[in-house]
């Protein structure tokens, strides 16, 4: 057992930050708690991919309505790679960790729609 450098690395990884911020926005502005529940129950790589797919579908609706930033395609690819390297449990914990933090000031006025990963 060692201090969790891997969890710390994951938490600060750009792809996790991107998806974590989207999860936070969908939770706060879209009341999308279902995606958190999906992630909580995801134990395998396949279930995690399915949970992310469902989250992106839900988030797309909210992002269109509120003109929110979407996670880019590269972030999704990187997230998949991280699951292969670190496992579902760690990536899931890092994502939910981002979901519970307070929104930063720039996030509340963020309306930049960029190429989505739907």
């Amino acid at each position, binding site marked *: 057992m060692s201090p*969790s450098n891997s969890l710390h690395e994951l938490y600060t990884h750009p792809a996790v930050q991107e998806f974590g911020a989207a999860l936070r926005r969908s*939770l706060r502005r879209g009341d999308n708690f279902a995606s*958190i529940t999906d992630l909580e129950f995801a134990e395998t790589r396949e279930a995690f991919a399915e949970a992310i797919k469902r989250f992106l579908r839900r988030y797309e609706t909210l992002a269109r309505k509120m003109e929110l930033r979407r996670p880019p395609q590269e972030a999704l690819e990187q997230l998949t790679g991280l699951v292969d390297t670190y496992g579902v449990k760690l990536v899931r*914990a890092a994502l939910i960790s981002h979901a519970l933090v*307070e929104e930063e000031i720039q996030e509340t006025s963020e309306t930049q729609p960029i190429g989505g990963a739907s």
Partner: protein
Amino acid sequence: MLYYITKTGLDVFDTARAWGLAVVLNVLTLDEVVLTDSEWTFVLDPVLPVPSGASLNSQLQWVTLFNDENWQRVFMTAKKKWTTKRDKARNVLQNNLAQILSNIYQPANVVSFGTGETLPGGLDPTSFKGLRHDTRARYAEDQLKVEENHWALACLGMATCGTYHQESKQQSNWLVLLPVPQQIRFWYFQDVRDLLRPSGVRYHSVQNAAAHYAVQLAERLRSRAAAVESLRDRFSAVLYFRLFGAGQQIKPAQGHQIRLEPLLDAINRDPHGSHKMLRWLDYCFRLGSEKGNEDLAFAATELVMRWDLDAYDRLIRTFVRFQKRGKVKGENYPTIETIKEVIHNVTV
């Protein structure tokens, strides 16, 4: 000059003796005593040497130590005879001072069990009958007797540096806490006891209470560390146990220890930055103390006791659920930096 408290394996007894000796040396030298946990022993190093022919009797600080109400709690199992026991402890330390100091000056000193004074249950729960041996339907276990010099040191240490919190006024339910020093400079016993002063929070279990007290202790050490830009005093753990009234008797319930390294390492890394982490954990305990919020209290307790990924995962999932229910106000949401600091301590 170094003095040694050799560990016996009875955690509370050993730690209480170390605190007791620190108090005695502090009264004799009127200066700081450096107290270090050195695996098999606690090493005490008074900054000033003990004056030759020193006596405790004439010291005002010494006399006032015995007016503390904690003495009654240490000897709670003796009921009305607690004053006799307290006076006995004082007399032993006063009369045998030279013998005690010459004995613990030897690094290889040991404590003999089986003769001497009975170790009180209010001091160490392992001294209660029925816990050390298989009693098999026959409730006839001997009392745990220890050498009277060491007994008196332990009683003094527990009465001065131990903390007794009564859980409810109606019942004799007590939560007992004692911090384990790792490397500290001891000056005044109230400074030690102040680290575990009452929180005013309702707890759901003895572990829940102990974990919150550990976080509060860490925050008080952090504020001291932030003032001088370094963590001067380090504690390795907090020993805790619960005593409850069973009819006419006091009996021990659960007890264990919470290790403090993760919290103190965070403070040592950044005394200012760790403030947010400790404040968030404290908030989780306080919110969890309300009726219906038990799952948050237990999740926070688990994290502070284990610091592993499962405990962390459980806490964040519970916290998100509380946010969703609207139980967490916006200003109490953790920041990215807060979570980073928590994650830094989690073992995977």
